[in-house]
């Protein structure tokens, strides 16, 4: 597909058609959203019965408010994106709700309540995040607007990324300098928003420059390697990731950005050589980092030898990882049930380790369900990629979906010892406002993109 078609005008969607056709997709979505709200309400009730032993209406009211907001989002979709994918909103809703229920459950265990408690903050943040999603849907009526802001998006992404390094604004929490704080009230992780900006930038940049990146270059061992002067962008992104590792001490975020870039680069150019080159660069950097930076080295030791008593007892050792495994083991196949386990024993059970907390109380069955929800969410994003007509939209949709998939893999894989543990939030589930806002914006963008796909004349499908 050429640049011209990528920039072609938005297809006309007349108001006449909107009046006549029954909104089958939206009705399905409403049905699923209601089920999601029911599941969320049940989770909170079960938490209260299991951990509190009585029903407390406060959080139920907040939850009901959230349900109203989700349904408002659904109504907005009926007007501005009537052909959007019907599964994205219910999945985001149920994951968000289960997350709140688990955070609430841990609040109860830690005897925290009222407006200062993590569950209430998470609910307020959720409201803010869903509201952001509504704003995104209302403001961005056509995703190709974003194509115009490719370089601005790139700049914003990099700025957001380095915001925490500014003295006085940045804040270091558990070793990683990825937060900024406003007064004493709120902390925010700008890197979460940066990933969206960077996805927009990568998509726009690659669609513009794919030809020179993919066509020219020398053939070595059957693979076409790029010219040195075309290496510029990958080196810049690589340097960016490495500086995140070094200055912000955040391995997970670096891996996330670089993985996102590599996949989008591969999609745009179709050159496996780029991936090999990129992986080589990143692994090289990671190996050097693991040798020179203590915290990276420790992560590897904790991963490979977690149950070793020396590693377990060391400062910054595998204590947390092993406690998470104990929690998962306690959950077994069916889990202890909401409010019946002891997830609070594991450090940070509501953010990095929320998946271990859920595994403890909902069991392997519950985790499989959650993983299936993530997979479905990602698959809906990829579906836009397959069915899309313009390359920018395809790349952006797949990029956003892949970021969610990779983030799940990095954090859940870290907790279950597939890869070394690095701190990242579990999308939609984990406590953290910036992560919620970012993921709901991703959901909104995917909704917008899927609507465009459905709206296009169906020539092929």
């Amino acid at each position, binding site marked *: 597909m050429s640049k011209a078609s990528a920039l072609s005008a938005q297809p006309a969607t007349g108001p006449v058609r909107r009046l006549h056709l029954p909104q089958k997709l939206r009705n399905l979505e409403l049905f699923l959203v209601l089920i999601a709200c029911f599941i969320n309400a049940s989770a909170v009730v079960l938490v209260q019965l299991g951990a509190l032993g009585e029903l407390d209406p406060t959080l139920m009211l907040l939850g009901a408010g959230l349900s109203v907001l989700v349904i408002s989002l659904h109504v907005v979709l009926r007007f501005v994106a009537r052909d959007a994918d019907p599964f994205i909103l219910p999945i985001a809703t149920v994951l968000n709700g289960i997350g709140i229920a688990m955070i609430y459950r841990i609040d109860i265990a830690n005897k925290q309540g009222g407006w200062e408690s993590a569950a209430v903050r998470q609910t307020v943040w959720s409201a803010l995040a869903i509201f952001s999603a509504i704003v995104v849907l209302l403001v961005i009526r056509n995703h190709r607007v974003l194509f115009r802001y490719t370089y601005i998006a790139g700049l914003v992404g990099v700025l957001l990324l380095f915001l925490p390094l500014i003295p006085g604004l940045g804040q270091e929490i558990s070793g990683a300098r990825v937060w900024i704080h406003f007064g004493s009230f709120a902390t925010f992780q700008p890197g979460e928003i940066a990933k969206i900006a960077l996805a927009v930038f990568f998509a726009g940049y690659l669609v513009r420059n794919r030809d020179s990146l993919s066509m020219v270059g020398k053939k070595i061992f059957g693979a076409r390697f790029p010219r040195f002067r075309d290496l510029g962008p990958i080196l810049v992104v690589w340097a960016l990731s490495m500086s995140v590792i070094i200055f912000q001490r955040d391995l997970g975020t670096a891996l996330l950005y670089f993985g996102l870039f590599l996949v989008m680069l*591969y*999609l745009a150019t179709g050159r496996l050589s780029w991936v090999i080159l990129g992986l080589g660069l990143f692994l090289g950097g990671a190996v050097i980092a693991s040798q020179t930076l203590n915290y990276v080295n420790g992560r590897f030791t904790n991963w490979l030898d977690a149950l070793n008593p020396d590693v377990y007892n060391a400062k910054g050792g595998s204590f947390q990882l092993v406690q998470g495994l104990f929690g998962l083991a306690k959950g077994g196949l069916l889990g202890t049930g909401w409010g019946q*386990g002891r997830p609070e024993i594991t450090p940070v059970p509501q953010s990095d380790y929320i998946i271990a907390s859920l595994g403890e109380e909902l069991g392997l069955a519950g985790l499989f369900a959650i993983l299936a929800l993530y997979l479905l969410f990602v698959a809906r994003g990829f579906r836009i990629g397959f069915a899309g007509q313009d390359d920018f939209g395809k790349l952006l949709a797949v990029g956003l979906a892949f970021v969610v998939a990779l983030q799940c893999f990095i954090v859940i894989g870290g907790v279950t010892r597939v890869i070394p543990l690095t701190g990242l939030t579990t999308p939609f589930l984990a406590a953290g406002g910036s992560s919620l806002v970012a993921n709901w914006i991703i959901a909104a963008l995917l909704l917008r993109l899927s609507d465009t796909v459905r709206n296009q004349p169906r020539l092929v499908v």
Partner: protein
Amino acid sequence: MNRELKRVSIVVMLMFVALLGSTSVVQAFQADNLSADPRNTRTLYDSYQVERGAILVKGKPIAQSMPADDDFKFLRTYTNPELYAPITGYIPINGEPTGLEFALNSELTGASNSQFFDKISALVTGQDPKGAAVEVTIDPVAQQAAWDALGDYTGSVVVTEPATGRILAMVSKPSFNPNLLTVHNNAEVTASYDALVADPNNPLINRAINSLNPPGSIFKLVVTTAALESGNYTPESTFLNPSVYTAPGTTSVIENSSGGTCGAGETVTLATALRLSCNIPFAELGVEMGDTTIRETAEKFGFNSTHSIPMTVSESTYPRGLDDPQTAQSAFGQFNVTATPLQMAMVSGAIANGGVVMAPNLVQEILAPNLSAIQTFEATELGRVMSEETAATITAMMVNGVQDGAASNARIDGVDVAGKTGTAQNGSTDPFTLWFTGFAPANDPQYAITVLVENGGGEGQTGFGNKLAAPVAKKVLEAVLNK
């Protein structure tokens, strides 16, 4: 682009497959190992959620779970804590349980296989699950008498029923208060525990089953059994009676504890040697028989293997591959021969029981919460170590030892006590280890008793078995026989 998209989809799919796989491995395949990890506090807390069964002596609890208003829900409480500490052990919140609390943990928590259906029915009926209670074989009169009689000595008293191997008393001193180790406060538990570990008298050791000492002269019972059972010796067999003996192939000398000969005369009989507890005749006998014969008999008595009562009893040893001088020393219970009080109780118990060794046992019954017996322990024979005639012969020799020999301080008016004392060396200057083992009444043995006094009973190398250990046994036997 769609070809690339397909490949990336496959990569994403593989990522999720890896996550499905890893969660399955952790939650299904490794779950049991992870739950059994001692660092897993979840398992520990869980074990407190069930009302742990009581440990009972004649129906009265010596360990029970009292309701507590904290995370653990129950506080383990011990009655008469120091008296019964070696039996109950303790279950701390931050470490491994010991004693019966450890050995019968799954029964006490209700997790043993035989309680499976009780667990299911509790689930269905909505009752709180409860662990099983354990009734021990201890006789509170014997236990108290043994505790009182041992006084301030460092040591142990074990009383068994010869016909069944049931343990009627098991005292270890100095003892400790297990209640200090079950409080629900990590720091307090650790402080109490550290203090007990730092105590040079090792109060946490259950000396009855875990303290290994040279048995000294009481091992002569084993050697005498070996000799009589070989058919080559009778109580009237004679041995040369010098005042100093040098085993073949060595220059180190062996003396009798008296320092002189074993009674008057050029020769001495086996019966006299045992009655007066002389070392030289036994050294000669040991060398003549060889270490293999002695070891075979010792192993029939239970040496060189562990026993489960169901706490694990340390392995009493008769070493392998001894040369003549070593065999000579081993024949009177020295040179790396070691024994627990319980092992020696098995020796005198077997003699009392007509030559059959009974498996020692501390647990009478496991009782379901509704007090029906889940499991009742039957007396178990470990095997015959000697004929009834030999047993009767040795009994007579032991009675003589108490009546008119080296164990005279165990004499009780109106009852024939069979006994043997021991005074074992632990090195050239260390305090002696003092022993008594025996049973009463000799014609119808009801009680077998073994007394261990470590650390010379505070008298260094001047105390001896008949002076310190035999009176303890006498007091206990008087109490249980109502004399």
